[in-house]
């Protein structure tokens, strides 16, 4: 068992006590993992992410190189979170603490665990997969609004999140939502090791161009375009419980699936566009009528398989094509309009 997996029950230097082991997750650098815990410090609860460095000590591993890689990963996420914290980004889950701990009965190097502590959320939006637990339409729209705001906030810092999937959208008791986990994020003008990967985040939710191996040479279309897609993907998920990437690829004939396609991305795009139309037609009836047109337009624009068509229709081809500003304003209006309508409907029913 790695050091990162042995933190349960320990009290860390800053007073955090590790109260529950949650799970092991793949980390941003590929080949590395982290362990998740619940922690407590007095009456304050938190979520601890412990970086698993055990791979660096494996048989045949180049320990110095591997350690450097893992520390880079830790530093990268911590630095990004510092930027978010300094800039008081309201819709981003920022680290409330960080540090390192020594696991008892392990060597100084092998037993050293680096960690980040975050505010503890009530849960994530994966409840939408269950028809008995899924939340109301207004809350879904608020989630999309909050996440688009969170992404817009980090985009203004020239950071692309690249892993906006349901498990990274956390819910809070005041009906607000925040975006978490910057382990796979990228910053313009500052490289991270995972920048070399075609798909930086979780491929199951990634935009199709990356899964087919097409990477735009510029930071904004490639990485912020990825965030736009994942925001659209999340929007579809909030109403249907399924993600657009899997739905899209399931609609393709096997000969056009990334595993079998030998041509370029431009060559397969027409088939993806047609599959995308089919997905939108499947999704549409599952969205509440009150927001259906708004949401189908949003998903259609954000998830378009052609990166040159992705983004708000008014911004296509302009320097602001990949900006979320228009969506933030638009979703705010949609959410307010919906809230008013639901209140009015409630009064009528009463």
């Amino acid at each position, binding site marked *: 068992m790695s050091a990162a997996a042995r933190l349960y029950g320990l009290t860390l230097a800053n007073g955090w006590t590790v109260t529950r082991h949650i799970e092991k997750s793949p980390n941003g650098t590929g080949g590395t993992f982290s362990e998740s815990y619940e922690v407590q410090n007095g009456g304050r609860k938190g979520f601890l992410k412990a970086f698993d460095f055990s791979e660096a000590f494996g048989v045949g591993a180049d320990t110095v190189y591997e350690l450097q890689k893992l520390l880079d990963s830790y530093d990268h996420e911590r630095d990004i979170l510092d930027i978010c914290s300094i800039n008081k980004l309201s819709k981003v889950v920022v680290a409330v603490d960080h540090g390192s701990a020594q696991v008892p009965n392990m060597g100084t190097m092998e037993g050293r665990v680096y960690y980040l502590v975050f505010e503890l959320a009530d849960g994530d939006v994966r409840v939408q997969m269950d028809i008995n637990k899924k939340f109301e339409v207004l809350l879904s729209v608020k989630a999309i609004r909050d996440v688009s705001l969170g992404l817009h906030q980090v985009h203004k810092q020239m950071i692309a999140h690249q892993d906006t999937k349901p498990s990274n959208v956390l819910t809070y008791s005041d009906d607000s939502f925040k975006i978490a986990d910057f382990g796979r994020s990228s910053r313009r003008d500052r490289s991270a090791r995972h920048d070399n990967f075609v798909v930086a985040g979780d491929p199951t939710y990634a935009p199709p161009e990356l899964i087919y191996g097409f990477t735009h040479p510029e930071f904004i279309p490639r990485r912020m375009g990825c965030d736009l897609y994942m925001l659209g993907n999340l929007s579809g998920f909030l109403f249907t*419980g399924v993600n657009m990437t899997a739905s899209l690829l399931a609609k393709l004939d096997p000969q056009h699936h990334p*595993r079998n396609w030998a041509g370029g991305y431009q060559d397969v795009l027409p088939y993806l566009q*047609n599959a995308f139309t089919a997905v939108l037609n499947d999704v549409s009836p599952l969205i509440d009528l009150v927001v259906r047109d708004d949401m189908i337009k949003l998903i*259609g624009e954000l998830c378009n398989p052609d990166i040159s068509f992705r983004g708000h229709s008014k911004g296509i081809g302009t320097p602001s094509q990949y900006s979320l500003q228009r969506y933030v304003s638009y979703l705010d209006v949609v959410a307010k309009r919906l809230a008013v309508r639901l209140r009015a409907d409630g009064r009528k029913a009463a």
Partner: protein
Amino acid sequence: MNPAERESKRRLVPRWRSLATTIKSGELASPMPRTEVRAPDEILPRPSDFLHRLERWNLSPSLVTAAELVESGIVEGREKDAVDAARRLVSIDKNAAPLIREQAAKLLERMGSGRDIPSDLKTGPVAIKGARDFIRVNLRDPLGWVELALAQTVRGASAAAERSMSVALKLAPDNRHVLRSAARLFLHRDDPERAIRTIGGSAATPTDPWLMASEIALAQVAGKSSRFLKRGAAVLAAGGYHPRQITELAGAVGTEELVNGNRRKSRRWFTQSMVDPTGSALAQGEWATASLGDGLISEDQLLAAFENEEALAFHLFRHRRFGAVKHACSQWALNDPFSVRPFEFGTLSAGYANDFEAALAFARRGLEMKPDSAFLLNALAFSAASLGILAEATEAVSKINPASTDRPQRLVAIANQGLIAFRQGNEGVARLFYAEAIDGFRRDGAFESVARAKIYLAREAMLAGTADWRTLLKDAHLSMAKFKDSPAISYLMLVEEDAAKRAAIEDSKRLNGGGSSKIGSPPFLALR
């Protein structure tokens, strides 16, 4: 008079049918040759999230871990490993969101585990959206626009179809399906030059065997030299493509060689084409068989190939089994909804089989698609008049515009005016029309058509009970004797069988003292 067979100049022009059928035919695979399936690690050069999800599913099976594993399996092409999770979603987690369960059910279907899908998730008849409604949510979908153009063409709105196709061409100017469909539409609109320009002008054509095949076939239709014939032959000679990917290219090059009289080369290319043919390539092979001899196509291929109906229709026609052709044509029309050819071929064959109800139905359906087709108008006039529906027959003939109709069809139309006149009881006028048609064919050197016109003249004379019908039939027989391979031989036999029956009746009447004419034996046996 049944119009002449049009398939003597069949070319391998692209077929245009639904996207789903086209994909199923294997025409839309990667444009580049490939030999191996790509490993997932090639696409995702990092440790797989799939394995992590598999581990989580194994450790704690739940709705969430199952749904995530199914989605990951679909994306990473590892659906087989997600079958158990999919089973759980369809059978245990009934509270899963409907699309999650649907997705799991479809995965099970693809993996051959359809029996595990509960009845509430079995795919029943799905209400298919209209093409226009379908693309309303994504106007950037070029193939959706092609589907709309197809629907518009089928219902006869060709101008609207051209507009839809223009959008598709703008969105995907180098896509094989868009280009081939557009070319076929332009050909349907009698603009082969535009069809050639569309295919020939695409940047994809020089490296795409399907597009090269289309360009070569379209050039043949337009009577032009192909820009890609040499390159196409070189691609075939070099090898490297899966046989299905070059079946139409080999067929198109083989057709060119056959037309130019190079039978040996032609046979070589057709043999290559028949290794793994599409339905259209198979039909081309069947067409070439008439010139190259049997042995190109095996019976197994003919019966088992996907979209084999056209080839089957040709095969049955070639063996003069006209009664069976109409069934193949009905199937062919279902699979090739845009094409007017199943209706042309169907009406022609049914006419030869004396099945005028079927011939009329085929002609009517074909004319819905191509209202100004002289061939179909003639076929309709012939079958309707043969059934005594003279108003419809007269109207059809009147719609044939001499200015835009080729001479053979004009002459057939004149013969059909003769047929209508016979049925109206105007024998004198009828004979004049037939004489004009026969004379016209003779002057054009179309002696097989002369013989066919004579058969129909004799038939009408016999039905009208004219004094000279036996002479006319004998004359037709003598003319037809030079064309033993003509499909009209079979029709002559039918007429002669009818003549024999009439002769027998008249004989019996005469023996009973009812008649006095001397009846000669019908000559049909001489041709059998």
